[in-house]
């Protein structure tokens, strides 16, 4: 059983560009959350998708958007990249409500904005 998979693992973008990151959740999980982890800090919640809709959102600007597909996979899009967007982006998947509280993380995508 594959865990949470993210692609790509590393990415270098230029300031002002747009980026799309991808996530496949763990089998049987229907909720996907995205986190941003700056160097030396804890992960910060960006938003969460359930039933193809954004269910919750953290304190991130509208430049950060996402999507969830019918197979529960998800994308994170960031527009107009800033140098400060450089971070490890983590995807976490969780089981259906009532089946547990766990969140399982992927290995992350390291985004560098130059």
């Amino acid at each position, binding site marked *: 059983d594959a865990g949470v998979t993210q692609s790509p693992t590393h990415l270098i973008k230029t300031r002002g560009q747009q980026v799309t990151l991808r996530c496949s959740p763990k089998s049987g999980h229907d909720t996907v959350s995205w986190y941003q982890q700056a160097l030396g800090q804890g*992960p910060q919640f960006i938003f969460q998708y359930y039933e193809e809709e954004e269910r919750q959102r953290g304190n991130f600007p509208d430049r950060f958007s996402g999507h969830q597909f019918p197979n529960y996979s998800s994308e994170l899009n960031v527009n107009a990249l800033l140098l400060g967007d450089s971070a490890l982006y983590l995807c976490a998947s969780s089981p259906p409500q009532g089946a547990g509280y766990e969140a399982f993380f992927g290995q992350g995508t390291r985004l560098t904005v130059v």
Partner: protein
Amino acid sequence: QQQVKQSPQSLIVQKGGISIINCAYENTAFDYFPWYQQFPGKGPALLIAIRPDVSEKKEGRFTISFNKSAKQFSLHIMDSQPGDSATYFCAGPFSGTYKYIFGTGTRLKVLA
């Protein structure tokens, strides 16, 4: 502001010793308390977790102690090994959601 305060920021322990990391939370809506282990360049891995209806949970060398009245929980690593050297995060999700608030992390180094 719903915060999770973690201490210490860094910890050095001799091989075979006990590592203790503490977390304090403010939001009483939290009803699940996990600890994550993260190695450099990797995503956080769920290590052990506890629900507030128990005061202690042990899995192998790892134990969570939970004090609901004090709104604190801690991770104890017994017989610490060099392979335990990593960054540890406590977290709390808001009740009924998977929106996790993470602590600031503790960098553990176990000396051989």
